[in-house]
């Protein structure tokens, strides 16, 4: 494996590539504001007759929806689509000639993208959303720390999941179905649309064992001080490692397969 500097190069390249298109971010900020507005309205109606739902009061729930969507604006990327394209066009063979590890170079460029999104997209969206909705700051140092450390871990879980979906293109011709299934699960089962504590008890038991909660619910619950940060961070870290192992194994099998196809 070459030195880390190479991967920093991938991240930097992506950064400059993205800041060239600024109107896209303006539209993105507006879109996220719309998402939060729709779900905040639903939450307000849920709280019309009760003070506490799933362990959250209304201010916490509105904070939840805002932070969940703002966080989503940061980690979201299209690695799944891009890797599928690489496989289908055969570009992946070219990248194998380079002295870099393909999955790592992909995660690095996604990290570059997340960095751009953080400044051009997530921060402005957070400012706009917080100026309209009453969003609570994290209550104390520990929740702040939990959220700050949980955010990059959420990114790593999401990016690796996306990469896994993209790499399945080596084995199946189409990944659009898997991509859309994954997107749906990240939003619903990960807790973007609704806090996982709003689900019925039996569903919560299942959701706790899936990787999706590590992307949204866990970091946002740490932000709200609803979740012990040591436990939250360990769960996230465990999923980062599990997905890493799965990814390496799948990548090895994909390499075998690509070599066979390439002759």
């Amino acid at each position, binding site marked *: 494996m070459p030195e880390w500097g190479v991967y920093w190069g991938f991240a930097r390249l992506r950064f400059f590539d993205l800041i060239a298109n600024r109107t896209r971010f303006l539209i993105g900020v507006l879109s996220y504001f719309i998402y939060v507005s729709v779900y905040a309205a639903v939450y307000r109606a849920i709280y019309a007759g009760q003070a506490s739902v799933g362990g959250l009061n209304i201010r916490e729930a509105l904070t939840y929806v805002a932070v969940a969507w703002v966080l989503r604006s940061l980690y979201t990327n299209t690695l799944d689509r891009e890797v599928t394209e690489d496989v289908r066009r055969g570009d992946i063979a070219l990248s194998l000639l380079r002295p870099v590890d393909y999955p790592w170079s992909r995660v690095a460029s996604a990290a570059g993208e997340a960095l751009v999104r953080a400044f051009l997209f997530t921060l402005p969206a957070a400012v706009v959303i917080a100026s309209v909705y009453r969003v609570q700051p994290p209550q104390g140092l520990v929740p702040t720390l939990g959220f700050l450390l949980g955010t990059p871990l959420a990114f790593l879980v999401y990016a690796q999941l996306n990469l896994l979906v993209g790499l399945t293109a080596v084995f199946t011709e189409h990944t659009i179905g898997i991509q859309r299934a994954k997107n*749906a699960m990240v939003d619903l089962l990960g807790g973007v649309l609704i806090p996982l504590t709003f689900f019925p008890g039996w569903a919560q038991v299942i959701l706790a064992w899936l990787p999706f909660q590590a992307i949204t619910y866990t970091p946002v619950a740490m932000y709200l001080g609803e979740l012990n940060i040591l436990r939250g961070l360990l769960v996230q870290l465990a999923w980062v490692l599990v997905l890493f192992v799965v990814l390496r194994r799948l990548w090895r099998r994909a390499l075998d397969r690509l070599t066979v196809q390439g002759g």
Partner: protein
Amino acid sequence: MLAKARLSYRADFLVQVGSDLLLQAVDLAFLAVVFTRVKALAGWSFEEALFIYGFFLIPFALFNASFAALSEVGGRYVVGGELDRVLTRPLGSLLQVQLELLRPQALNGVVLGLVVLRVASARLGFTWSPADLLMAVTGVIGAWLVYGGLWVAVASTSFWTQERGIGFFPVFYNTINFSRYPLTLYPGALRFLLTFVLPYAFMAFYPAAGLLRGEYTLFGWLTLPVGLVVFGIGLLVWQRGLARYEGAGA
């Protein structure tokens, strides 16, 4: 012919239908989870919210099959110059572009919408009178025309902006989210906006609520006229834009 070609890849078709159903399942699951926590949402029961959502799916599917892909007009036709080819033929340019961009796979949403409507109306004990059917049909057509008018108008802006990408379409597309749920959820100013400025409330809520409750009957019947007006505006903007088109070759 293009539509037929698109339908001929069976695997593609099945994947599209399957993942579409999954996306709708997410919304249905969201509603189901919300209603484990409340009996009524802004005055609407689970069955009523389901009824509104089922109605929403039908014109939304028609829109996805017919108008949604107009977001490609800027890049492919106006800036890309494919409109040159279209303009040499003796048929309306908009109609041709639209026929080329048809996506019949998306029509599966109509079936799902009908199923959801049927289940919801059975659970509500709602009996369909001929007048109800007429309101539903004119409502679906009106709602579809609201989508159509908006998309034609936004697509036409590429004649002025020469935008290669999809421009402001994502904002209009994401705003559709407001029409999945009962309008009474939203604050007054937003309701006004969604009725009189960007008439997204006519995409599902007014026609569906018109069927469910007497207080919205008038708005329910207004869906078709509103759709015709919005579509008329869309056509007007297209004509204006087309007059500015100078072709791709310099």
